[in-house]
């Protein structure tokens, strides 16, 4: 019926849309990776502290055994 006009040039908005998608997705993925790394670091730190505590606990119990041995 009516002569078809060319569609309007809205490609700028299309680019903006996809750019937004990638930027937000990238920010989210990066935040996941950073948080994952932090948790891993926390884990290793805590495990080290736990080991040190165990060693200290073992050392603390040793001198008592030597003293009782001497008395006898």
């Amino acid at each position, binding site marked *: 019926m009516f002569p078809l006009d060319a569609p309007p040039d*809205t490609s700028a*908005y299309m680019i903006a*849309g*996809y750019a937004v998608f990638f930027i937000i997705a990238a920010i989210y993925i990066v935040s996941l990776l950073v948080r994952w790394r932090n948790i*891993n670091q*926390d884990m290793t730190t805590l495990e080290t502290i736990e080991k040190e505590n165990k060693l200290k606990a073992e050392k603390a119990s040793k001198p008592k055994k030597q003293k009782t041995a001497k008395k006898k």
Partner: protein
Amino acid sequence: MQSKPSALKILDVASVLALAVAIYLALIYAPEEATMGQVQRVFYFHIATAWVGMLGFVAAAVAGIAYLRTQNPKWDIAEVAAVEISAVFFFITIVLGSIWARPIWNTWWTWDPRLTTAAITELIYVAYFMLREGVEDPDRRARFGAVYTLIGSLSVPITFFSIRLFRTIHPVVIGSADPSATGTFAMVPGMQVAFFFALFAFTVIFIDLFWNRIRMGQLAAKVEQLKLNLMH
């Protein structure tokens, strides 16, 4: 922490590939729409991200109810993962919806039911995280999270219907009465391929992100437990 299961590694790769194909289909394969021009291509990802948002929404609701019934922390971890992913993807949906609306209707925001409900859901998610932030006891935090998830997941559908039924503010339409005035357009087969593949690809992406985020939550829970043990 055990190393990443190989199924998950494969899923990671599959997600990236699926996304790449979806982008190709949306940007190159699908034909240009007659009345709106190139911006219509945003629609494929707008709907697909909304779909992921809804998957997360439902997953969170299920996890919340499951936690209240079983008190098992794994459901709490799943719930947080679901809410987080849904929050990110609904945000993308809203921004893309805004970008799509601007050249079509000459406005950045339309108070249509779907967009408005998505915005309200975002606010509920923000409130959810603020609630959790403010509670120190992990058990109580999980319970409160589950209760609020339940309240929110019931409220949101009711909100959607009440806006649709009772708020008749029409979007601003500048220009002639063409089909794009209501944001509808006829989907030719090329577009349908892009549309449905985008939904499929983003479903894969959702599962991948969800699984990864749950693993992270499990590790975080172990760390928190270890911290509590060592503080004594």
